[in-house]
């Protein structure tokens, strides 16, 4: 550690801004200390402090002229790297009908950050993990985040809403910065935490800090910890929260919560986003724009026009259990850094520390899965590739199978899905129903504007495609014993390629039974193909319909009735895809037949808007359905399955 | 006996819904009626009991096209009632945003609503097929006005920043400066546009008007005044305007019509302002008026399009001057304590003078409100003009004559929604649904 005069800040500003770097630091604007571009030391909030309490924030004059004598303001570094609103790509339909997708690249702007607290440095690490070290890497975030110089500040004067010491993120800057500063009157204690920091420090006029300087800082940090507001008990917090999903406090807090999204917006780690189509008036071109979203909006959990989480209590539960619970399973750390922003900027004055204590006022614990390690991230631009329709097969009145020529499906696994898109209309996840050489098939039911338009495509027309995404069926785990496949309605589509592969491999799949329920005989998909399978030894097909005319000689009734009549045997394994209600009854029927939950796999449904776990929409408890699923072994999701408002 | 009736059940290219009937019998006009169809909205009634600080937000909703006029007249009146004094810096910002409204409203009227009459089109969109540059120019000028309003007030219709005492936030200097180039280009374009109005064929009509416009400020009347100037009569202090004119509720149109106390209709708006204050126009606009050889007393209502074009140039030039001198004021507004009082406010809306009177109680809530919009003041004058036009229509075919009558009414740029806090459809609807 080195000791410098505070006047060296001038020099540090110069160094930080070298090479045209934008310097971002705290400054007073509109009655708050905000994090914004500054050029000169005088723009720091010298002589200001921010006094905060739930739902209130006031600037006050200090008795001294400390430059860093404040805590955190309404904004954070988040907006610098994860833009509040940004174009992902532009789509164009050329006059010849061909499509083009052009990625939007944010202009590379090198940044230097100064005055970042330990809590916010922790938040940057959390966001790095979300955007850069998950299965998919977000290039827009990466481009903005790359090559950022970070000058942290040890927090010597925490506010009453601070609880970084509870969350283990502060007050001392220990990582994530190049330099760490401590302000002591007109002196600075400076620590270099990286080679770049060393280089910067070498250019400052500074002397080696003494043992008493070290001791002063240690004491200041201890004092800071002691001055923090209410502490949060973080031991097993994620498991304690998940054990209290039905806690009456959720209803109580919902009577105070405005569901306004302020907490998630000011949170330096919240990353949920929404992507919308902005089409030009002529319909020939459109942009896909990503914007900050929040689990407190209705649309965030909207699925087929209905909100999964309609009640404020459910949204509050989603937020708090994700931030302090699911996050641990998803990213191996809490989503909270103890900065206190969600308390200060809550118009309803809700203090999350109080809510956490009230919600976990018992000894219950529910274990969560541990975080899946991610050894290799792949870049995901969210930009579609152009695919061309090779042929269109009409399966039933409102279902067609599009055979597409598209690249990138070589490593496809049955059960995975694609994101299909049309400019100006939008994008949706569609399961892959088959692959044949370089061609992939998607079976689509016309239920909305996009699927209607997809179903109307003709051979030679183009569309956008991303994928394949998600976890498919565990064919290897199924091999060897009897396999029961249960499909309902269009749920047969994601199973078809798995069935084909099992049919084609009689040595490993000697006993294969497909139970398939559809609405009417006309709605039975792939009827001709299935008839071809019937001759295959060891394969049995049971099809049933909900309603039929008297001329139909097949089964009438629900698919579980068929299952009940069959002896499936306790060695069987089952894979199921269909409406959630149908899957729930099927799982029960299988359990009665002796097939336990850990030998049943189901596909889960959530709105897989980005398909990469980056938008936060598809969350189901500790999972992102788009990348942890859509196929789950039933015991993984049993406690969440069919539960309202999760 | 010959009788011809010219009638339009739904007037188009005017703001709001109105109709007119003109009946000529044996060469003499026997009936000239302008009726206004809007359901009453009762602003003056529901303003009572509201807080003084809410009035600017509420009265803006009287009109989507000239909300700033309403906000400014209301602010003036309430500031007077509350004894609140604004700073000169803030007054200039008020004039600036008002310039924006004049630009937006005049550009809309000249190019989109009135020009198609002169060139023989049903709409500016139709006109764009043959005169695209003209329509695009109109849209550019209008957009410049909207941008100016947006910069200061947030949005063109019902801006949010105007308040008692000033603005909730004063515009940043840089933001205004950023508009300067566009305004300057548009000033040139508006000069060209005014020259173009001279090429239009003006139907003949010459009327003897009593011109009423605000006066008492050193510049061209806009956002403040002490008096109402009347041609050929002594001027009237703003406070007394309510007594100098009378509003009457006439059965045939179910509208309040204003006349002078002796029953004489008067005219407010561009021609009146030009008549009284030609010499106070910005030099660029004044030179333009000279170049166009506009008489100070414009007696032909069709020529109002030329006056409006001159005012458009004036508003651009005025706006640019204000921006050039602009410094961010220390405070965006001054505050006043609520008190009981009476206040009067009059400003020049694009289509004429807009007069408000409020009485406040000691907690600052509204005890009574009176709003006299320009269109109701011009209404009697419009009917008088229709009467004057009548005989000249007899030589024309019916359709052309009807269009001509409509064109005359349009030359007033009537703002019917403004007027509808006191207008209703019933009577005229029933009468016209024969």
């Amino acid at each position, binding site marked *: 550690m080195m000791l410098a005069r505070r006047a060296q800040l001038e020099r540090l500003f110069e160094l930080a801004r070298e090479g045209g770097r934008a310097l971002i630091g705290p400054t007073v604007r509109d009655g708050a200390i905000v994090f914004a571009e500054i050029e000169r030391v005088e723009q720091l909030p010298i002589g200001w402090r921010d006094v905060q309490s739930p739902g209130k924030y006031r600037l006050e004059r200090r008795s001294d002229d400390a430059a860093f004598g404040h805590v955190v303001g309404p904004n954070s570094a988040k907006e610098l790297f994860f833009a509040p609103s940004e174009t992902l790509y532009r789509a164009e339909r050329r006059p010849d009908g061909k499509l083009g997708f052009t990625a939007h690249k944010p202009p590379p702007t090198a940044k230097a950050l100064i005055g970042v607290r330990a809590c916010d440095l922790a938040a940057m690490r959390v966001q790095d993990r979300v955007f850069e070290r998950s299965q998919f890497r977000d290039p827009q975030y990466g481009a903005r985040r790359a090559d950022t110089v970070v000058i942290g500040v040890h927090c010597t004067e925490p506010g009453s809403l601070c609880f970084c010491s509870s969350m283990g993120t502060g007050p001392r800057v220990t990582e994530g910065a190049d330099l760490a500063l401590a302000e002591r009157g007109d002196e600075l204690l400076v620590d270099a935490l990286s080679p770049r920091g060393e280089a910067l420090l070498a250019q400052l006029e500074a002397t080696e800090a003494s043992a008493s300087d070290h001791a002063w800082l240690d004491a200041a940090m201890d004092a800071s910890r002691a001055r923090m507001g209410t502490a949060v008990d973080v031991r097993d917090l994620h498991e304690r929260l998940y054990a209290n999903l039905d806690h009456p406090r959720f209803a109580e807090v919902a009577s105070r919560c405005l569901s*306004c999204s302020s907490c998630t917006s000011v949170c330096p780690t919240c990353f949920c986003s929404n992507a919308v189509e902005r089409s030009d008036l002529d319909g020939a071109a459109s942009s896909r724009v990503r914007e900050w979203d929040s689990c407190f909006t209705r649309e965030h959990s909207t699925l087929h026009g209905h909100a999964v989480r309609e009640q404020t209590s459910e949204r509050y539960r989603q937020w708090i259990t994700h931030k302090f619970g699911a996050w641990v399973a998803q990213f191996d750390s809490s989503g909270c850094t103890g900065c206190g922003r969600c308390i200060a900027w809550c118009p309803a004055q809700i203090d999350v520390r109080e809510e956490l204590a009230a919600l976990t006022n018992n000894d219950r614990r529910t274990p969560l899965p541990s975080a899946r390690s991610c050894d290799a991230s792949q870049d995901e631009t969210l930009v579609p590739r152009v695919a061309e329709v090779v042929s269109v097969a009409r399966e039933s009145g409102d279902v067609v199978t599009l055979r597409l020529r598209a690249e990138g499906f070589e490593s496809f696994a049955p059960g995975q899905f694609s994101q299909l898109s049309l400019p100006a209309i939008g994008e949706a996840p569609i399961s892959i129903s088959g692959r044949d050489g370089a061609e992939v098939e998607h079976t689509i039911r016309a239920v909305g504007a996009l699927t209607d338009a997809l179903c109307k495509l003709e051979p030679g027309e183009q569309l956008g495609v991303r994928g394949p995404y998600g976890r498919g069926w565990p064919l290897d785990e199924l091999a060897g014993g009897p396999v029961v496949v249960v499909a309902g309605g269009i749920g047969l589509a994601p199973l078809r390629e798995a069935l084909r592969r099992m049919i084609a491999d009689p040595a490993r799949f000697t006993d294969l039974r497909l139970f398939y329920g559809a609405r009417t005989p006309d709605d039975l998909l792939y009827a001709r193909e299935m008839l071809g399978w019937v001759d295959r030894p060891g394969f049995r097909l049971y099809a049933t319909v909900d309603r039929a005319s008297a001329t139909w000689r097949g089964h009438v009734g629900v698919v579980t009735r068929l299952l009940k009549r069959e002896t499936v045997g306790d060695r069987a394994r089952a894979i199921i895809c269909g409406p959630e209600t149908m899957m729930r009854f099927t799982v029960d029927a299988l359990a009665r037949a002796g097939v336990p939950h850990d030998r049943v796999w189901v596909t889960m449904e959530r709105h897989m808007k980005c398909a990469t776990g980056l938008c936060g929409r598809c969350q189901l408890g500790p999972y992102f359905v788009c990348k942890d699923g859509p196929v789950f072994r039933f015991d993984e999701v049993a406690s969440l399955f069919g539960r309202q408002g999760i | 006996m010959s009788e011809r009736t010219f009638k339009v059940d*739904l007037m*188009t290219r005017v703001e709001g819904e109105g109709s007119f009937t003109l009946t000529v019998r044996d060469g003499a006009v026997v009936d000239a009626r302008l009726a206004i169809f809007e359901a009453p909205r009762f602003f003056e009634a529901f303003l009572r009991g509201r*807080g003084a600080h809410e009035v600017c937000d509420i009265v803006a909703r009287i009109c989507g096209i000239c909300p700033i006029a309403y906000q400014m007249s209301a602010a003036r009146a309430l500031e007077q009632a509350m004894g609140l004094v604004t700073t000169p810096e803030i007054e200039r910002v008020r004039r600036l945003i008002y310039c924006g409204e004049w630009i937006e409203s005049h550009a809309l009227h000249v190019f989109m609503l009135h020009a198609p009459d002169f060139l023989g089109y049903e709409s500016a969109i139709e006109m764009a097929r043959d005169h695209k540059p003209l329509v695009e120019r109109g849209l550019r000028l209008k957009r410049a006005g*909207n941008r100016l309003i947006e910069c200061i007030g947030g949005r063109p*219709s*019902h801006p949010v920043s105007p308040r008692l005492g000033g603005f909730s936030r004063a515009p940043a200097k840089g933001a205004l400066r950023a508009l300067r180039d566009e305004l300057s280009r548009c000033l040139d374009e508006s000069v060209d546009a005014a020259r173009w109005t001279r090429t239009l064929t003006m139907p003949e009509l010459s009327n003897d008007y009593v011109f009423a416009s605000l006066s008492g400020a050193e510049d061209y009347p806009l956002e403040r005044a002490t008096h109402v100037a009347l041609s050929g009569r002594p001027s009237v202090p703003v406070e007394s305007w309510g007594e100098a004119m009378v509003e009457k509720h006439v059965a045939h149109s179910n509208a309040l019509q204003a006349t002078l106390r002796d029953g004489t209709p008067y005219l407010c708006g561009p021609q009146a302002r030009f008549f009284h204050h030609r010499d106070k126009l910005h030099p660029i606009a004044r030179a333009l008026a000279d170049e166009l050889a506009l008489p100070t007393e414009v007696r032909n209502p069709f020529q109002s399009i030329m006056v409006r074009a001159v005012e458009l140039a004036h508003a651009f030039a005025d706006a640019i001057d204000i921006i050039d001198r602009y410094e961010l004021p220390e405070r965006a507004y001054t505050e006043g304590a609520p008190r009981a009082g009476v206040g009067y406010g009059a400003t020049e809306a694009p289509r004429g003078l807009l007069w408000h009177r409020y009485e406040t109680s000691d907690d600052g809530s509204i005890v009574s409100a009176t709003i006299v919009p320009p269109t109701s003041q011009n209404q009697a004058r419009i009917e008088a003009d229709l009467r004057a036009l009548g005989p000249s229509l007899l030589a024309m075919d019916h359709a052309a004559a009807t269009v001509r009558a409509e064109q005359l009414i349009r030359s007033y740029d009537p703002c019917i929604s403004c007027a509808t806090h006191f207008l209703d459809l019933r009577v005229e609807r029933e009468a016209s649904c024969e």
Partner: protein
Amino acid sequence: MNAKPRLGVFKLASCDGCQLTLLGCEDALLALAERVEIAHFPEASSRTDAHGTFDVALVEGSVSAPFQLDELRSIRARSKRLVTIGACATAGGVQALRNGRDVREFIETVYASPEYISTLDASTPVSAHVAVDYELRGCPIDKQQLLEVITALLVGRRPEIRDESVCLECKRKGIVCVLVKRDEPCLGPVTHGGCDALCPTFDRGCYGCFGPKERAPTSALAARFARDGMVPVELVRRFRGITGGAEAFRTESDRHE
């Protein structure tokens, strides 16, 4: 595409500001006219077709006089899609402030000869009378949102207009919350976004032009205002404003009366 889709613009009780927004789409106006046939738009064109059929009808204004009811039913019958534009058409507008009060007394306040006046007791939204396909909020509506509704309807998708709070827009813009920093009463937390957080941008509290958002827990916000010292009469005014006729705001204001 064969014939261009036909667009009609209609007006009930209103200030014209919303249809003016269509004229204010300067850059897009001529392009729009290429895409659709603007068949009835009296404010802009003398070619009208009040009795024709429409693919999309934009309706501005509230129902506040008897004749408007018949007019509205007729428009509905002739339009494939009926879109209400603005606070009047979706919530009754500022003129709904008269609702629940003695209209006769109101008429006498404004009119010299009240016997000429015919009006309904309440100013009501279009959806109170006929089915509405889409409600575009705002006083006035936002230009971009209007274009979004039209373009979305043209390609057959649902408009990408989110029912989220003003707070979310405010935070995306990096505005410092006026409620938190100085207790300025702001309806943003319970108000439908779409204005791009205009009022907070201009350093004042939101006054609810876009009406209540879904799940607008107005009582929780009123509780905050009351904690900050707001008296009931002011609470009533606060929720009974430009969109005071909307259910959530009306109920809340009534609660404090």
